[in-house]
């Protein structure tokens, strides 16, 4: 379990005493990670900032419910993820997959679906990033959320399920369907690459 820093504990103690400036340290510590995570889900930088800004205000309102023996980050980031998925549902905006998938893109996509096979073959390029970006855009908000929580925010399963008001099975199902959806989207390349990976094992 991550241990809250002294600075964070002090900031939360100040907040709980009604000193709103205690929030400053928390905002500065978590804002970039939070906005980045929100952006990867809602795909709109301005909306991401709005979501995180609201989430900080929400955190102030709910700070009395926060267990200060635990780190603030996961608690706060989960609320950002929740707000982000809600925002996407409200927008109902999905960015279509476009362009033809090249071989390197398919490798990146394969790894995204199942990180095990042959990481050494992935070459991280602008093109592969664009491919991942487009593929993520075809997922539902909930599917994106679990991938971002797991692979970007590095949350454990326990951290992901906490406070989400969703049972563990639902979270697993979301991750599974997210991967399946990616697999389906990238089927053309997935098949050959995955088979090749299996053959090499």
């Amino acid at each position, binding site marked *: 379990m991550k241990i809250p820093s002294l600075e964070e504990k002090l900031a939360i103690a100040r907040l709980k005493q009604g*000193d709103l400036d205690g929030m400053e340290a928390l905002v500065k510590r978590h*804002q970039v990670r939070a906005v*980045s995570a929100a952006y990867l889900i809602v795909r709109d930088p301005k909306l991401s*900032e709005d979501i995180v800004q609201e989430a900080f205000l929400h955190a102030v309102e709910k700070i009395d419910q926060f267990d200060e023996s635990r780190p603030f980050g996961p608690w706060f980031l989960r609320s950002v993820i929740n707000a982000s998925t809600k925002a996407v549902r409200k927008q109902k905006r999905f960015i279509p997959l476009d362009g033809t998938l090249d071989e390197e893109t398919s490798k990146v996509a394969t790894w*995204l679906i199942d990180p095990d096979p042959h990481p050494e073959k992935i070459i991280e390029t602008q093109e592969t990033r664009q491919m991942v970006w487009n593929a993520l855009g075809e997922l539902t908000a909930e599917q994106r959320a679990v991938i971002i929580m797991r692979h970007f925010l590095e949350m454990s399963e326990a951290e992901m399920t906490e406070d989400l008001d969703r049972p563990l099975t639902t979270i697993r199902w979301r991750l599974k369907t997210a991967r399946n959806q990616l697999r389906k989207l990238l089927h053309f390349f997935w098949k050959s690459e995955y088979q090749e990976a299996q053959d090499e094992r």
Partner: protein
Amino acid sequence: MKDKDKPMGNKNPTIQSILEHLAKETILSEKTDLWPAVRADLAASKTLLQSKELSMNKRFVFGALATVLILSIVVVFVANNVTTVSAKEILDRAYQVQTQAAASQGIEHIRTEIYGNLEAQPEEQGLYTTTDKYLDLQSDKFRRIIIDNQTGRVIDVFGYDGSNAYSSDSTKGAPQSAAPLTVYRTPQNPPTTEIGTLGNGNGGLNTKTLFDKMRSDPQVQLAGQETWEDGRTVYVLRSEQPVRVLIANEAQSPNGIIDVYFDVDSYELVGNRVTIQKDGKELLIGSQRVLVDETLPEGSSIAWDLSDLQDVTIVADPNGQHALPEVISAEALATRIPSAYLLRTVPDGFSLEVSVLPKQFTNRSGNGPFFYEAGYIDQAGDYFVIRAFDDKPLKDTSWADEIYTTASGLVLYFVNQPSLDPKFTGGLMQAPNGHTYAIDSTLPRETVRELMEQLVLVK
């Protein structure tokens, strides 16, 4: 391994790296600074969104303390040392003094000593403060300084020098803080001084409400006279009533004794004292004493720019990150806030003050700036205030005790709050545009309903 602790999919450093890159391409850490916006939003929620009582608590907590206590006077009395002058006569004369036309020129100066112990702690744990207030009656200039009597330190500052507003950071103004108080200097229009707190001449006392209550109460008794250390002699009017205190963060209402003081010569209201019985002993909960109430000649030398204060740090805030709600004209409101409602005409005998937050967020719902407050107030102190509450519809209205819908489709959810000032009338209003607004008034519900019918979207 517990099921919940099992890994869910493998974390992969490359995937993480790609996601990091994708985020960093757009979200630049050096350009991401949400704190000013969050802070301003927190400030907005304190100044414009919350109830008037909460709003006062932030900026006028000490002055409001005694006011709230006094405003809840009820009718049980203790007869004691009745003199030849009756309580009713004192009240009638005092009322005439309090309501006579105030000076319109010069500089009003009021210094008030206030003690607060709302949590009913041992008396020495309460806070004695002195509020020193200057108001130029012909311009917008004012300054109000609050000093902790025990330490002599400035703990709160609020002012306007004609072009800059001065506002201390209340979160850093705690009496126990060792650091100099930070005061932000922001170029802006005159900030709103909030109804009934700076404009009157009684250290924050709402005299109309107080006198209405006391004069309509046949059992008000004169407890006697007192001579104070400064030589003033005062009449003491006394009542016994429930007093709201916070004990262990829980509101309680033990019976208390309320003394109200009137100068025997001028009949001016000069103070009050509230006590309760706790553990068999009298415990002081709050007191307020007007030390100075004078009008200085026009042009008197006052340091409106606060340059005379020694233990504060004045910080320039040219971008208005700490700007206070500022007063604007009703006409300007239409250009600043596209979703503002005002009464079609200002009611006879009332004046209108409109205030907005200079630095607003335009993107909460994509509908542009939102926060404003419009206060209609008459000479007697009655008011009708509408302020933006949220740019979203109400989710829960189960708390409403009456729902009133106007011909134009505005829906007001009245809330009954007997624990507050009994004269409070108001609730939350939902407009057809999906926004909600808070209504706060001293007027009866029937009048508020009539005024609601006059609300129009400003254009």
